[in-house]
């Protein structure tokens, strides 16, 4: 079984070569190295999948170290779940590496960029395949570190560096929960193997299982940008766009939900933890969908949409449907990287302008290919049948619907409402960016050409996004339910009851089509063109302002005002002041504690001596009390 190991090690080798020798290599060679190792990793993943016989096994590579009875090791867990995930990660990464070559063609720091990117792929594959929780933690920290480095990649802007640090620290807060859970596992089971943990979870006290489940959930929330640790992801859009596609859409943010999938056999023993996962997922899905509705920056729309979609995965998992959750994870990886890469093309064409209200119909005429790809991506995201998202999201909604309990039913309602919002914001993006009429000085005069290589990378993803539903079609046909069959042997996978499936699917289809129509009504070109020429009203800047979100708000007032208000409130107040405030509040608390502790060090030598006297008195008091 060398193929899985190669999947893991090829990117690492690439990163090492680039780190050590990258400076001295010609640009072309460095690029080839970076892309080739990831491609090799993909080929190895294909080989591993081809050689997979349905039998789950653990591949022990090496021991790391041992403490007491505990010996963390470099060991891999190879089953359908991990191999499919590895295949997806390496495939999407390979495409994005190709894309990056074109996207970064003018950037001087490309060696650093590709080095981090390769290192990232290695870390992500570690998360995917590791069987040992300590080994997994290596990948877990690794993706966090690479994310920090890549978000702050364009470091000339201090805000980018700050965003990188914010991401790292918020995900690190989640890591505290991971480490605490690890410590608990170490003390109660004396093993750090995932397989062992899942197998022996029944021996743990129920409260312990719930506690572990909640701790891992918190850790996953950090990595996957779920409530309440989600505020880092929109800021993470400071990274170069391919990085956003790879890290903040397709792979790293799904690491959290993937970890929970791996732990599903253990967590499913605790209904409370499962419900918590589902609830966090549904709430985040709704919350983020609202926020996405109010954005102007194309990447921020997509960022919030990622948060929302990962929320669906949590919901599916919490509802007990691992297959559906994983199905959505795969399809989401395809259409979200498609959307991000498309957004990268749009941004390139617009000379690095991110505002969708400054793009408009000329962009559609300038780059019809990008337009087509974005429409396909939006269909998949919005769940318009028969695109991939329709099946995967439908499956999750169905799982939530069939789950027992009133709470899950309520969550289903919430998630269905979020589905409507999803299709609204997806097509708002398309209609505004490709049909709008930006007035005044909205962006550059002439659009820039989009490199062919970048465009070429869109089509495989578009195909996958549209046809992704084929992975797990509903119904009784021989070709349907492939993913379910494949995953059948994975622990934690349960089958869904069949009744009412058609009804729920029909509802989903109805919602998405209705949403599509509503979006056309709200942001469609007809309406936009109806509006009086803004240039006549006011100076140009003001005109832009009007045709920008003021117009937006006017049209919304008719139908979608409540949504808009809610979205703005959620985005500005809850997120901006509430959640950000919460995170910042903790940071401020630490900062104030930090400053007051520093104030002790007055620079006076007598301060140290005073502490001697105080400490001596205290220790003597303790001793005299203990001795008495």
């Amino acid at each position, binding site marked *: 079984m060398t193929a899985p190991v190669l999947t893991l090690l090829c990117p690492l080798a690439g990163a090492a070569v680039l780190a050590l020798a990258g400076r001295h290599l010609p640009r072309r060679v460095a690029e080839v190295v970076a892309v080739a190792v990831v491609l090799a990793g993909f080929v190895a993943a294909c080989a591993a999948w081809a050689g997979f016989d349905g039998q789950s096994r653990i591949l022990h590579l090496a021991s790391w*170290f041992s403490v007491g009875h*505990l010996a963390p090791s470099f060991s891999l867990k190879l089953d359908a779940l991990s191999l499919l995930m590895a295949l997806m990660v390496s495939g999407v990464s390979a495409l994005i590496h190709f894309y990056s070559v074109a996207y970064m063609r003018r950037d001087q720091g490309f060696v650093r960029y590709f080095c981090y990117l390769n290192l990232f792929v290695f870390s992500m594959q570690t998360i995917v395949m590791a069987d040992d929780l300590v080994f997994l933690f290596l990948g877990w920290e690794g993706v966090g570190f690479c994310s920090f480095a890549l978000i702050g990649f364009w470091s000339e802007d201090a805000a980018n560096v700050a965003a990188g640090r914010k991401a790292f620290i918020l995900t690190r807060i989640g890591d505290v929960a991971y480490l605490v859970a690890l410590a608990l596992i170490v003390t109660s089971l004396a093993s750090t193997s995932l397989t062992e943990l899942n197998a022996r979870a029944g021996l743990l006290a129920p409260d312990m299982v719930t506690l572990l489940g909640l701790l891992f959930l918190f850790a996953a929330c950090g990595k996957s940008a779920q409530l309440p640790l989600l505020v880092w992801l929109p800021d993470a859009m400071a990274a170069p766009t391919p990085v956003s596609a790879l890290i903040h859409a397709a792979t790293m943010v799904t690491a959290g939900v993937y970890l929970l999938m791996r732990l599903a056999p253990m967590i499913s023993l605790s209904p409370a933890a499962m419900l918590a996962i589902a609830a966090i997922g549904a709430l985040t899905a709704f919350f983020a969908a609202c926020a996405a509705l109010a954005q102007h920056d194309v990447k921020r729309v997509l960022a919030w949409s990622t948060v929302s979609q990962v929320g669906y995965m949590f919901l599916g998992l919490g509802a007990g449907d691992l297959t559906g959750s994983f199905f959505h994870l795969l399809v989401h990886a395809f259409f979200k990287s498609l959307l991000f890469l498309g957004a990268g093309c749009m941004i390139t064409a617009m000379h690095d302008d991110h505002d969708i209200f400054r793009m408009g119909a000329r962009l559609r005429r300038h780059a019809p290919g990008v337009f087509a790809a974005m429409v396909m991506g939006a269909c998949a995201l919005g769940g318009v049948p028969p695109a991939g998202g329709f099946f995967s999201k439908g499956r999750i909604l169905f799982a939530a619907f069939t789950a027992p309990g009133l709470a899950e039913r309520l969550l289903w309602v919430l998630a269905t409402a979020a589905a409507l919002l999803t299709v609204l914001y997806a097509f708002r993006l398309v209609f505004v960016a490709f049909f709008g009429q930006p007035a005044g000085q909205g962006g550059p005069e002439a659009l820039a050409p989009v490199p062919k290589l970048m465009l070429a990378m869109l089509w495989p993803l578009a195909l996958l996004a549209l046809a992704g539903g084929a992975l797990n079609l509903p119904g009784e046909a021989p070709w349907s339910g492939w993913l379910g069959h494949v995953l059948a042997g994975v622990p934690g996978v349960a089958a869904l009851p069949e009744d009412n499936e058609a009804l729920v699917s029909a509802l989903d289809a109805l919602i998405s089509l209705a949403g599509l129509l509503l979006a056309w009504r709200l942001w469609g070109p007809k309406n936009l063109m109806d509006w009086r020429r803004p240039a006549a009203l006011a100076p140009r800047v003001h005109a832009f302002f009007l045709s920008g979100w003021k117009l937006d708000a006017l049209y919304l007032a008719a139908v979608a005002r409540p949504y808009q208000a809610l979205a703005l409130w959620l985005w500005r107040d809850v997120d901006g002041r509430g959640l950000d405030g919460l995170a910042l509040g903790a940071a401020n608390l630490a900062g104030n504690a930090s400053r007051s502790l520093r104030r002790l060090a007055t620079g006076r030598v007598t301060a140290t001596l005073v502490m001697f006297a105080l400490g001596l008195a205290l220790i003597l008091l303790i001793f005299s009390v203990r001795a008495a």
Partner: protein
Amino acid sequence: MSDWFYLLPQAILCAGGLAALGLGAVLLRPAPGLQLGGALLFLAAAGAIVLALPAAGPVLDDMLAFDGIVRFYQLLILGSAGLSLLFASRYASLRGLAGDELYALVLFATLGMLLLAGAANWVIFVLGLELFTLCLYVLIALDRGRRTSLEAALKYFVPGAAAAGCLIFGVALIYAATGSLDLASSLASTAAGDVASFGPGLAGLALILLGVGFKLALAPFHLWAPDVYQGAPAPVAAFLATGSKVAVYAALLRLVAALPADAWQALAPVFWLLSAATLLAGSLPALTQTRVKRLLAYSSVAQMGYLLLALLAYPAAGPAPVMFYAAAYVLMDLGAFGSLGLLSPVSGDLDALEGFAGLGRTRPWPAAVLAVSLLSLAGLPLTMGFVGKFVVFVAVVRAGYPVLAGIGILGAVVAAGAYLRVLGALYFGRPVHAGQGQPPGPAAYVALGLVGALIVLLGIVPGPLLGLLR
């Protein structure tokens, strides 16, 4: 084997120190290479003998102990001294500080540290500690033309002298309680009798803890640390932060090992408080710190907190975590302070965060070692710091101190933010003044390579070392 062999490493260091002084007296300006080479030779010879000596009980009229733990710590001390000298030699000669005093005092200080690490008797304990402390006072003031260097020495000296007074009075009280100056038997006599009759001894232990706490910069006795580290020349700070800490720590370890169970019961809550306070007082102030040397000082305070955690777990979990973490600590702090010294311009040590901007690009190698050390201090996987923290946390949780482990994890997360700021400056900052600082020179490259490689290597394959320690 005769007892006298156990004095051989110390005797070699004596000879080395005297030779360095003599060389300075005979040749007015000895070549820096000669001084450095000679000092390294003596250190290596001492190390070879330490390595070769078989473990034994107390030797030389029960003055010195020499077991596996002592051997390990003595090797650590010698290594720290050697690496500090490698980092220091060019740093010092560029600044006109590389006189015979530097080499002689480092060798004498190492001698004191070896004595302290191996002390089996309170007299040797006190005198060894005094010997290296006295050397460090002068070494910190090495840059005596600079006011800050002198002030740092003063800020180490004043509390240091008071702490020495406390320590000696503590020893006097223990002697008063038991009539013995032998480290093990004076403490063990509490087990036979009741704790009550050991009353003066407990008071003495409190004073000794104070003295030791000062040297290790445990909170609340740590306030000197940021000032002294900031003012001391960077390679001296490296030696101060590693060698002296490890030596004191080794002695503390022997002290804890010699304590009978009921005395340990009395002491454990104090250790609990000290380690919690140290973890917080080290990690939190780092968060808003903008001076890197002070940040490293706070960080080394926090590291002492982790070492204290390991010590709390020592009676339950054995010596492996303590020793491994001590080794990790030595390498991380040597790497951090040493590379900081190499990055600094001649006009004074780099300190303000802005000064580090862009050095990752202009001075890749020292910056890389600094970065690796910081990542290791932050406890990122594949570095020694991670394995060390992991091993310590496991031991601490097993020993029944989950709250302390929680505080430790929290501290690690908080401090990570601080280290990240430095990393950000190194690699994301725009270089402010290009070409500052001098090329490190071959000796420093050797030290850089050794430290960096060991931190990473022992982070990936810590197994052999951990196995050795067990």
